[in-house]
């Protein structure tokens, strides 16, 4: 059942992140940056798509999917436009996420005050 898979896959990726922070004393900034690279790596072997088929949102929600989306968009555009398609298509799939994050972060910062 896809909900169980989503739970297991998302949970496992988070568990790995927690261990990296606790045992290897990395910061969340380090771990998320490395996991994005891992996501891109898995996509370069076409493995991340299979993970998404298996776990649905469980593979899309963790930050690893950001790396996957960047590479995926880059390669899709490269099919069409040649080498420079890599640069042209990179943000195609991630555009909605980044755009909305900027807009919402901006609006919240304008209308709210930090509580400390």
């Amino acid at each position: 059942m896809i909900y169980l898979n989503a739970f297991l896959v998302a949970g496992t990726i988070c568990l790995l992140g927690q261990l990296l922070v606790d045992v290897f004393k990395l910061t969340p900034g380090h771990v998320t940056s490395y996991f994005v690279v891992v996501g891109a790596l898995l996509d370069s072997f076409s493995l991340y798509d299979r993970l998404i088929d298996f776990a649905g949102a469980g593979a899309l929600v963790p930050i690893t999917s950001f790396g996957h989306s960047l590479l995926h968009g880059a390669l899709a555009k490269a099919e069409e436009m040649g080498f420079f398609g890599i640069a042209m298509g990179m943000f195609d799939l991630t555009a909605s996420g980044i755009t909305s994050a900027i807009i919402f972060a901006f609006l919240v910062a304008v209308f709210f005050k930090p509580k400390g």
Partner: protein
Amino acid sequence: MNKNYTEIIKKNQVKPRYLRKSIVAFVTGGLVGVVGQGLSDLYRYVFHLDKNNANSLMTVTLILITAITTGLGIYDTYGQFAGAGAFIPVTGFANSMTSAALESRSEGVTLGIAANMFKLAGSVIVFGVVSAFVLGAIRYLFFH
């Protein structure tokens, strides 16, 4: 400084509760995955969006929830509890941007909010783009 002091310090180191933190991260992270799946299904089967749009909207929804809870001052409590269950999902990315922007509001809109928004999330984007470019180039040039 006496070298034996280093031994004394080491002896008093507190071991974090690895097991408890790992379990909490696993469960909370897993639940975020489940919620994401639920949102995706909601957008597909109730609002009749196609798969890609539903998934995009799911991400946007999670980002919105994170931004609002950050602004209300409750996300940091969740983050302290959940650990990686909060910073690994896209919620962590959205929180890092919102909290950085929110904190800098006393420095104005341009050089405060706008300039500081990517202070914490910048590394994720840089690593993502650089690695996707390198891997993409390798894939395109050698396996095309």
